[in-house]
């Protein structure tokens, strides 16, 4: 068996788009596998909290159809990891449903075609994790978050990040398409070349550089990247017009979204690129050698969990009056004190039973207390985010706040001002707020202990 493995990564994530011509060029190079990521924690806890996709279903269908067609043309595996942004079990089923729809379209043209699917489910049972916590098989990562049975119980969804071993188990079924729940960004790319005996350091390093698609090139939005991995290193190149990989664009990608630019922790070990060498083969291709894979035991998988953090209602008022703009911070402090008194008088709530978070847009809305600039323009947006234990309560507080946000004066002895509300009604129910509450790893005896593999034939 040839150890060289050619991998096509169409884009950094399904739903973000890619250059179709660049995809066709990459397909013509006859890759051994097509790999794409379906998500990450990047967009925040809402996706995992609610077990839903952040991306448009219609866009995912359109892109997945193109990738399924490319796969059929090549007759190689197509792998998606972290399906539906958060990689929950529901989102594996969501991708399965999309795949079924597209397969049904194709089946009308070619009745004989069958598709073998392998599904990897990564969601974790809270009660099993509670036992693992007692057995001290769950460890905190830095920064350390508290963890107890109640916190695990409060999570709406918990996933374990699958590794290369899980994708390999799915590949071993002979699947045409692998739909995985939450996986590490790199596992979908590294699995096949590792199984075929390519250089382990090169497999993981190539996977890290390629997992964001063309982000490691000079044309990040073109999406498509190809990486050839062999028994000494890897060669990486984009296929879009005018896109290039350079030693700098490739080596700089190890910085991206990584706390440590030299060491990357994965289930079963870590990648060490401290001695990696980057060499331009020509204008577009970069050769990388010298990366190391360091296996460690026990085998661990990272956990991600989200839980309800309350319900929110927002109001936005605009200050254009020069005196109020100039004194916006003092006005908000005075208004906030007044609101706490009014809320206590009408709803019998202490200030710690809800949250009024004012953000002064045009002053320090982005950086809060860390803001160092004091220059202010001619208008200020006052965004109030109310968080309470129910939507009804957040909405009720919003209605109570409404007239004061509109009319509250800077001093008691002046006519009531009226600020600008940009729409009616002034308040907006935002629904549930979720928060990440796990930064931990789970020890396993066997990699498959935390992940369930199922096969489906279409």
């Amino acid at each position: 068996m040839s150890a060289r493995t050619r991998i096509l990564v169409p884009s950094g994530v399904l739903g973000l788009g890619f250059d179709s011509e660049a995809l066709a060029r990459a397909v013509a190079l006859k890759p051994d596998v097509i790999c794409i990521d379906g998500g990450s924690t990047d967009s925040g806890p809402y996706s995992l909290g609610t077990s839903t996709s952040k991306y448009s279903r219609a866009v995912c269908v359109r892109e997945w159809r193109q990738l399924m067609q490319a796969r059929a043309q090549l007759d190689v595996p197509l792998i998606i990891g972290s399906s539906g942004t958060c990689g929950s079990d529901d989102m594996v089923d969501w991708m399965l449903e999309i795949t079924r729809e597209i397969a049904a379209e194709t089946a009308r043209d070619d009745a004989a075609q069958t598709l073998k699917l392998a599904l990897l489910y990564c969601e974790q049972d809270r009660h099993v994790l509670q036992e693992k916590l007692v057995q001290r098989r769950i460890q905190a990562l830095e920064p350390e978050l508290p963890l107890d049975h109640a916190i695990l119980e409060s999570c709406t969804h918990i996933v374990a990040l699958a590794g290369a071993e899980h994708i390999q188990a799915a590949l071993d079924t002979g699947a045409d398409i692998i739909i995985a729940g939450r996986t590490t960004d790199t596992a979908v790319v590294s699995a096949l070349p590792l199984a075929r005996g390519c250089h382990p350091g090169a497999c993981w390093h190539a996977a890290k550089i390629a997992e964001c698609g063309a982000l490691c090139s000079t044309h990040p939005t073109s999406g498509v990247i190809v990486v050839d991995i062999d028994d000494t290193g890897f060669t990486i190149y984009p296929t879009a017009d005018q896109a290039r990989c350079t030693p700098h664009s490739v080596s700089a990608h190890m910085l991206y979204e990584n706390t440590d630019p030299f060491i990357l922790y994965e289930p079963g070990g870590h990648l060490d690129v401290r001695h990696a060498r980057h060499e331009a083969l020509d204008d577009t291709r970069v050769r990388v050698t010298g990366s190391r894979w360091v296996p460690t035991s026990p085998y661990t998988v990272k956990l991600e969990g989200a839980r309800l953090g309350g319900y929110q209602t927002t109001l936005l008022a605009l200050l254009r009056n020069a005196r109020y703009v100039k004194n916006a911070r003092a006005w908000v402090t005075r208004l906030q004190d007044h609101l706490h008194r009014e809320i206590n008088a009408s709803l019998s709530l202490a200030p710690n039973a809800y949250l009024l978070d004012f953000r002064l847009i045009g002053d320090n809305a982005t950086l809060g207390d860390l803001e160092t600039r004091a220059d202010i323009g001619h208008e200020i947006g006052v965004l109030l985010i109310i968080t309470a234990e129910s939507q009804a309560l957040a909405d009720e507080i919003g209605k109570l706040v409404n007239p004061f946000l509109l009319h509250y004066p800077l001093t008691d002895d002046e006519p009531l001002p009226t600020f600008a509300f940009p729409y009616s009604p002034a308040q907006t129910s935002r629904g549930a707020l979720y928060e990440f509450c796990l930064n931990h790893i789970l020890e396993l005896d066997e990699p498959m202990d935390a992940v369930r593999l199922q096969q489906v034939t279409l």
Partner: protein
Amino acid sequence: MKVSDVVDSVRSKNAGPFWVTIDIFCGNEEAYCTIADRLKTDKVADAMGQATTALKRFDIAELNVVKFSVHRPVTQGHALDRDQHGAQWSMLIEDLELDT
């Protein structure tokens, strides 16, 4: 002299929900040496409202990059989080005055 007077660009981005990582792309060796020598770690930690123990520093001469990874001031998505992706914290670093 400020960081932004010397370097090509500063990028900040979440590295997972609990960390933010800041990449200072100096652009050339001279700028890199200026930042490596004159941008003190405690100044960066202070700008981010964090203790220096919550911060990691990497001086990467081959890339002319100085990188800091720091605990997020609040966890991504928390009710008090103002920047879900952590990309605007780079402005704080651009504005830092270099030591003489």
